[in-house]
């Protein structure tokens, strides 16, 4: 059985390395962030498979921590929202209701 788990983990590692093409190519930062999110989930799965293949039950805890904190980078990413950007951005769109007032931090 452990050969099967290891082969599955190897397969998933291969999908991560293939997915890196999307990170390198982009084009937008949203694409890259999505790829990183996919890698996080794949990494969790690899850890679960390895915990059975190597018979190391602590790896499930490592997977748990990865799953728990997978969202932090995406939350930091969406905050970049509302920054000044070049006006000639090709597909620049704006929600009609969000006026994007950039007040300096009002919560001091």
């Amino acid at each position, binding site marked *: *059985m452990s050969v*099967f*788990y290891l082969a*599955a983990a190897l*397969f*998933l590692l291969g*999908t991560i390395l*293939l*997915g890196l*093409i*999307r990170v390198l190519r*982009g*084009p*937008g*930062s*949203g*694409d890259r*962030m*999505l*790829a990183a*999110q*996919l890698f*996080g*989930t*794949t990494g*969790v*799965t690899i850890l*679960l*498979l390895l915990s*059975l293949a190597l018979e190391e*039950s602590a790896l*499930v805890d490592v*997977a*748990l921590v990865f*799953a*728990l904190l*997978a*969202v932090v980078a*995406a*939350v930091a*990413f*969406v905050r*970049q*929202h509302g920054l000044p*950007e*070049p006006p000639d*951005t*090709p*597909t*620049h*769109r*704006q*929600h009609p209701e*969000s006026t994007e007032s950039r007040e300096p931090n009002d919560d001091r």
Partner: protein
Amino acid sequence: MIANTLTVLLVLAGLVFFAAGTAGLLRFPDVYSRLHALTKADNVGLGLVVLGLMFQASGPADILKLLLIWVLVLAAGTTAAHMVAQRTWTHGEFESDR
């Protein structure tokens, strides 16, 4: 024996979804389509693998931990998809990264 067969089948099914997710990430034309490839296929993939591994768990605590991992990844995937879609919508797809 039956448990092992079920595990192999479910993990293999999960791997198919991971492969589909990666293919979608690489082949779909824009961010909004890639959201689908990723956050759906990917989480079904993990769900199937988790379901498969549950047959190998040594007790109810292990099963609950696996389930918790899946729920956390589901929440993270949903939230991340929402954030990326929202940011792309308000900010444009090809903003300057410098």
